[in-house]
């Protein structure tokens, strides 16, 4: 084991001196997490604001303007419908309202002009519909009261949402969608920049032969390289959590919007994430070593790695939208590599850790890691793979 420790120390020393590794494995995940949280938070804030957007009212309906303002929307006036439509075409207005005179039965028809292709216009319409609905309800209640009919008749069925808390306090929906994906992604891509150098780089520079003619067993060489790569993959993945902490410390409206559902990474969630990450990182590190061993040089290795990275991303992407399905609770999902880990991390962040699912995922990932490391060792021991140039 002394030889393995010597190789791990040397590889880690080399890796941490490599600017590419430092940037790709550690700076990048932190930077991306902070950036994405701010970006999504900004979008969320903007979307919420759009429902309270300014609406343009064609002159002549002061009463209607006051009603809309009373429901939290800003009102400006335009002289004619045509002028309002021009403002929409010039993207200066999201919504223009024209109120027709009341009909004989007292109904006011409110024409709302908007560009259906523009999301902000749609969101402003939703805000207006809520305002109109609230006003209609108020009017109905007043009528019912005048006719001495109970107010409840206006709402035959009243929907009362009640939140049910399961497990610990969890993170907000967007954090839950984003973080597992990033954690899994960087467990692989964090190690990519150095993986190409580990074996194929040594072949290319002819340093591998000097290593092969030492008395160290080839299996120990692979093990040393595998362990050092695992450390980098793990730390890269864990950097996402550091990014989360940093993002939560920023005093911006975006941060407030994103973390209003809670930070999510409770001590229990952190332990669960670490337990899930260990076999996943071992699986990824073995794949990376096997590819690096097989490739003739770092350029060839990078080509293979880019393809495999794409395959790894697929299930990770699915983990972002798994909340829209009920697959997350199915047993079989724990047998889909990568997705199983992302799904269990998601559950942990929601404070809903299912220990049976976590155990199955850990065992299954460990089995895959063992198979992958066996393949990597077999490749490393094949002389036609090792000494081909």
């Amino acid at each position, binding site marked *: 084991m002394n030889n393995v420790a010597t190789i791990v120390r040397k590889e880690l020393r*080399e890796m941490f001196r*490599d600017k590419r590794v430092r940037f790709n494995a550690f700076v990048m995940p932190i930077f991306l997490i902070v950036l994405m949280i701010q970006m999504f938070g900004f979008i969320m804030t903007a979307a919420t604001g759009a429902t309270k957007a300014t609406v343009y009212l064609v002159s002549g309906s002061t009463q209607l303007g006051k009603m809309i303002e009373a429901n939290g929307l800003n009102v400006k006036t335009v002289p004619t419908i045509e002028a309002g439509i021009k403002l929409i075409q010039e993207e200066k207005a999201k919504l223009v309202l024209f109120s027709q005179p009341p009909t004989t039965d007292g109904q006011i028809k409110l024409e709302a002009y908007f560009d259906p292709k523009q999301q902000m216009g749609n969101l402003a319409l939703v805000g207006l519909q809520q305002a109109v609905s609230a006003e209609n309800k108020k009017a109905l209640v007043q009528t019912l009261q005048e006719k001495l009919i109970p107010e409840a008749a206006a709402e035959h069925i009243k929907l009362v949402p009640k939140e049910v808390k399961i497990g610990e306090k969890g993170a907000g929906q967007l954090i839950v969608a984003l973080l597992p994906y990033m954690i899994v992604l960087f467990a692989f891509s964090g190690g990519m920049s150095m993986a190409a150098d580990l074996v194929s780089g040594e072949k290319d520079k*002819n340093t591998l*032969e000097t290593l092969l003619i030492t008395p160290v067993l080839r299996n120990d060489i692979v093990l040393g390289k595998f362990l050092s790569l695992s450390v980098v993959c793990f730390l890269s993945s864990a950097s996402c959590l550091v990014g989360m902490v940093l993002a939560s410390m920023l005093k911006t409206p975006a941060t407030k919007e994103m973390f209003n559902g809670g930070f999510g990474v409770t001590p229990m969630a952190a332990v669960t994430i670490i337990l899930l990450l260990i076999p996943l990182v071992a699986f990824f590190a073995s794949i990376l070593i096997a590819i690096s061993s097989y490739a003739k040089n770092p350029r060839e290795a990078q080509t293979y790695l880019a393809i495999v990275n794409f395959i790894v991303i697929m299930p990770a992407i699915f983990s972002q939208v798994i909340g829209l399905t009920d697959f997350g609770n199915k047993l079989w999902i724990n047998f889909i590599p990568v997705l199983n880990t992302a799904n269990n991390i998601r559950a942990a962040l929601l404070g809903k850790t299912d220990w049976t699912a976590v155990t199955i995922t850990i065992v299954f990932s460990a089995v895959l890691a063992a198979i992958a490391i066996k393949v990597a060792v077999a490749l490393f021991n094949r002389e036609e793979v*090792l*000494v081909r140039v």
Partner: protein
Amino acid sequence: MVRTSGLKKHFTDPKTGLKKAVDGIDIEANPGRIFGLLGANGAGKTTVLRMLSTVIQPTAGTATVAGFDIVSQPGDVRANIGFMSSSTALYGRLTSREVLEYFGRLYGLSESRLAERMKYVVEKLQIEEFADRLCDKLSTGQKQRVSIARTILHDPKVLFFDEPTSGLDVVTSQTVMEFIEEARDLGKTVVFSTHIMSEVERLCDDLAVIHDGVIVAKGTPQSIKDLAGEQSLERAFLSLVKFQAGYVSSRESR
């Protein structure tokens, strides 16, 4: 001592079929002498050295290095050899000292023995002034000195040199050749592959001319010149290689 008997290495190339890189060679290199493997590019020199250093396994035949069999005792063979080639790089992001310490530990030297050997090689090869500089920042000559230090750090009995001066300037080549002579004087067994005749004439006590994976002549440099009936080793080498080809052609034409 290095001894081979009927050593063969055959590869299967998907495009060209079976390739006999080395096809049954017998050589013997002894302590305190430099054994040269002289051949053109692709003759099989590197493949022989790779088999002897246990990087690849022979298809057939046997070989012993420092008394150990290359197939059944590869660990013992590796513990007793040093290998150097001009194309062997160092780890660019490690300092010279770190590279030497790394290999010293991999060769199983105890910390006290490592410190003692480090002191010796650093002084011997005048590495001290750049010992703590990253290898990427070293000149070619400095890198070569570190490579030599790495090769002898564990004080191996047998040294393999695979075209060690190829691509080096005259001054650096001189350092390498002096080092090889010194290794011989220290009683090491030296096996040296090259295609440069002047190096062979200066260094080699014993010589084998290898062509297309087979040995076409063996002996001292002088005996090989005599065998070919030539004054210079270069002409002798060309004659031997052509002789083989001509020999086959003349047999076929009969």
